[in-house]
């Protein structure tokens, strides 16, 4: 029987080849080799192997889902074919590398890489091993597809945990030193690199069991009528999370506190930019400018080195905040009439101007030029000086608490509604009686204020500021974390910051591929979950409404010629 759809075998090969391209990309940018020595399970497999084996699994799984439904043995065979195609592409890379010197063009195409891809075996045997592994993993993907969703999710969860814990071995061991007896127990779980095989198995079973049990509970909970959560459990949860947040720095130690501070700084900025971009729909690419203005104002007002003022942190803070608000309004005024791309370009320029001014010789007597400003004051509460990462963490925590509360209140306020209207349709917003001038300026000013506060804490933390920290990439990072978290969503800012800022800091090797990973993540997000990881309720509604309506009632979409 001849059908219109391409034959499943062809599709399997195609997906397999695409997977091969992804695997080659990851190999040639150096990700595989970088993680080649990082054992997940000591002596058994490394992160490098995870990196090139994952595409095989993922693309084989995708093949099976796209070609479904198929009989059981065909599912396994299709998966195996897809896996074989992927590993075939990699084998071709290894073969080519033996005859041609690829290193001239791809510095990462090293013997080391080939070693990893062929499991450190001699050429023919190695290639066979590679192909065989592809075949088997592809087949396993088929097997996974045939499992119940509950079993699948259990396996996925358990595997992810093993990989994560193995990968973060160094960090976990370092942190656990602080826990005395408990620390020794933790240390015993790990080898020199990665988990010991035994503890890997235990962890796998443990996480799997917990996940399996949780899904069971969820299922039975769904079948029962939902009872409302008792109010005291809610307070208990809230109090519990607060306690955990407060206890984090002493428990985790200095290295994690540094990361947490960094995340906190980006959360503060994210909350501010979320108002400008997410609430009011004004695309601001020069957001780092306000961060810089906050930090530099703090510097100028408190550093005795410059010899103008030497205020304390708390005395200088209101002035820094005022400076940021004014800067926000100053930027807002000329761009009132601009929309979309024009606004983006102008704000981008504004960010660069601020950085260049800080760098300039002309303002050197005031701002220190390339040398920046040193000896910036740190906040003091009573007799207590907040100067370590752990102590400053609490400053971030309080700052975030206040700022998040303000943002949350603003969102549902009158001005929040005005921002929303302006974002949707400026002309109609005016026809509703919304003053677009003051509304836009308010968004810029509040956004600038939050970013400026982050800047002051940043300056106090390092006790110095330099123009090169006011990089354009800071603005891009903040924008990315908002998009990843979910435009206009306040919890999304937290999630986005944790994912984008904490993960490269946790895994130093990863930092090298930071922007590559951002790019891949953004593309993947836009394709699969455009509303973000923790979307605002409205965005979710609207994106899913699309799915429901398309096809059902085509006239509806056509009835709105000027919808967007």
């Amino acid at each position, binding site marked *: 029987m001849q059908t219109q759809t391409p034959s499943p075998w062809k599709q399997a090969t195609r997906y397999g080849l695409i997977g091969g391209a992804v695997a080659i990309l990851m190999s040639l940018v150096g990700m595989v080799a970088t993680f080649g020595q990082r054992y997940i399970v000591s002596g058994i497999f490394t992160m490098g192997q995870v990196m090139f084996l994952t595409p095989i699994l993922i693309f084989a799984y995708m093949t099976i889902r796209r070609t479904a439904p198929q009989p059981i043995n065909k599912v396994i065979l299709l998966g195996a074919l897809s896996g074989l195609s992927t590993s075939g592409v990699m084998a071709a890379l290894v073969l080519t590398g033996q005859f041609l010197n690829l290193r001239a063009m791809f510095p990462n195409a090293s013997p080391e890489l080939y070693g990893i891809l062929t499991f450190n075996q001699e050429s023919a045997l190695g290639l066979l091993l590679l192909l065989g592994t592809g075949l088997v993993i592809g087949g396993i993907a088929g097997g996974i597809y045939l499992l119940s969703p509950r079993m699948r999710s259990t396996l996925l969860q358990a595997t992810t945990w093993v990989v994560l814990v193995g990968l973060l071995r160094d960090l976990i061991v370092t942190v656990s030193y602080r826990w005395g007896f408990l620390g020794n127990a933790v240390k015993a779980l790990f080898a020199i690199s990665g988990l010991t095989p035994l503890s890997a198995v235990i962890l796998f079973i443990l996480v799997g069991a917990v996940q399996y049990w949780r899904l069971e509970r969820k299922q039975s909970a769904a079948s029962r009528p939902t009872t409302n959560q008792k109010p005291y459990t809610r307070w208990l949860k809230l109090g519990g999370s607060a306690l955990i947040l407060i206890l984090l720095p002493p428990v985790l130690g200095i290295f994690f506190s540094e990361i947490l501070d960094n995340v906190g700084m980006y959360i503060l900025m994210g909350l501010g930019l979320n108002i400008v971009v997410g609430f009011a729909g004004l695309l601001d690419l020069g957001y780092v400018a306000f961060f810089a203005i906050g930090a530099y104002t703090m510097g100028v007002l408190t550093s005795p080195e410059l010899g103008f003022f030497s205020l304390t942190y708390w005395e200088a803070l209101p002035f820094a905040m005022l400076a940021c608000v004014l800067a926000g309004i100053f930027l807002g005024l000329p761009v009132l009439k601009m929309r979309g791309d024009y606004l983006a370009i102008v704000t981008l320029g504004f960010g660069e101007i601020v950085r260049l001014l800080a760098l300039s010789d002309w303002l050197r007597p005031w701002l220190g030029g390339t040398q920046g400003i040193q000896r910036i004051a740190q906040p003091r509460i009573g007799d207590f000086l907040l100067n370590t990462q752990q102590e400053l963490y609490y400053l971030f925590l309080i700052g975030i608490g206040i700022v998040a509360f303000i943002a949350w209140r603003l969102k549902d306020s009158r001005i929040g509604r005005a921002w929303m*209207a302006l974002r949707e349709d400026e002309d*109609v917003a005016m*026809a509703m009686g919304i003053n677009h001038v003051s509304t836009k300026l308010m968004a810029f000013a509040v956004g600038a204020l939050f970013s400026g506060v982050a800047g002051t804490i940043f300056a106090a933390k390092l006790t110095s500021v330099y123009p090169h920290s006011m990089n354009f990439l800071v603005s891009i990072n903040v924008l990315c974390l908002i998009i990843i978290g979910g435009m206009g969503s306040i919890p999304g800012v937290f999630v986005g910051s944790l994912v984008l800022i904490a993960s490269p800091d946790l895994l130093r090797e990863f930092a090298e591929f930071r922007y590559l990973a951002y790019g891949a993540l953004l593309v993947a997000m836009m394709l699969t979950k455009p509303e973000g990881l923790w979307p605002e309720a409205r965005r979710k509604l609207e994106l899913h409404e699309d799915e429901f309506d398309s096809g059902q009632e085509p006239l509806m979409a056509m*009835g709105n010629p000027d919808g967007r």
Partner: protein
Amino acid sequence: MAMLEVENIHSYYGNIHALKGVSLTVDEGEIVTLIGANGAGKSTTLRTITGILKPRDGRVQLDGEDLSHYKPHEIVYKGIAMVPEGRHVFARLTVSENLDMGAYSRNSKQEIADDLERMFTLFPRLKERRSQVAGTLSGGEQQMLSTARALMAHPRILLMDEPSMGLAPVLVEAIFDTIKQINKEGTTILLVEQNALMALSVANRGYVLQTGEIVLNDTVDKLKKDPTVQKAYLGME
């Protein structure tokens, strides 16, 4: 004294002289229609009344007060609301949120809630779809929403720009029935239309606009009998 008085306005788009001395009046409680062909300047007239466009000459008065010093958003507070051409709902907000936004210029929660109920009696369709995203409504529903949203500002006078545009004949009739209903409930209406037949059937008086100038001005009964109107706008020979 008329409620809305447009006196000899001249409006421009750059060098384009779009309105060449338009004058019209609307009395309290009336439905007045402004008919004219495409590009005659009907929308421009409404834009000038709502302050989005400032006339180079002439003025707009509401209850004898000159509106030329007010910004567009301030004019809403004076009691003029507009249903824009092509509907323009907030496509990504829900029906309820759209209506809420319409009441932006008002403070009394109780009155707003009462008006919301009134809108839902006037447009039962909107009540059914209150939590649906407005961009997914049909054209007719969007027109209802856009009208209801303007009414949520509790205007003294409602300006409507071609509400029948692009709607099926059944829906057009429904919309015009609603216009009569709204008027009966006490809102004065200035109705801009190309569909002269329908417009003249609901209005008390009418103006005919041609390339930026008022060429005719009379009660609807007289206009319906006018040979030029019959020929140009009612499609009779």
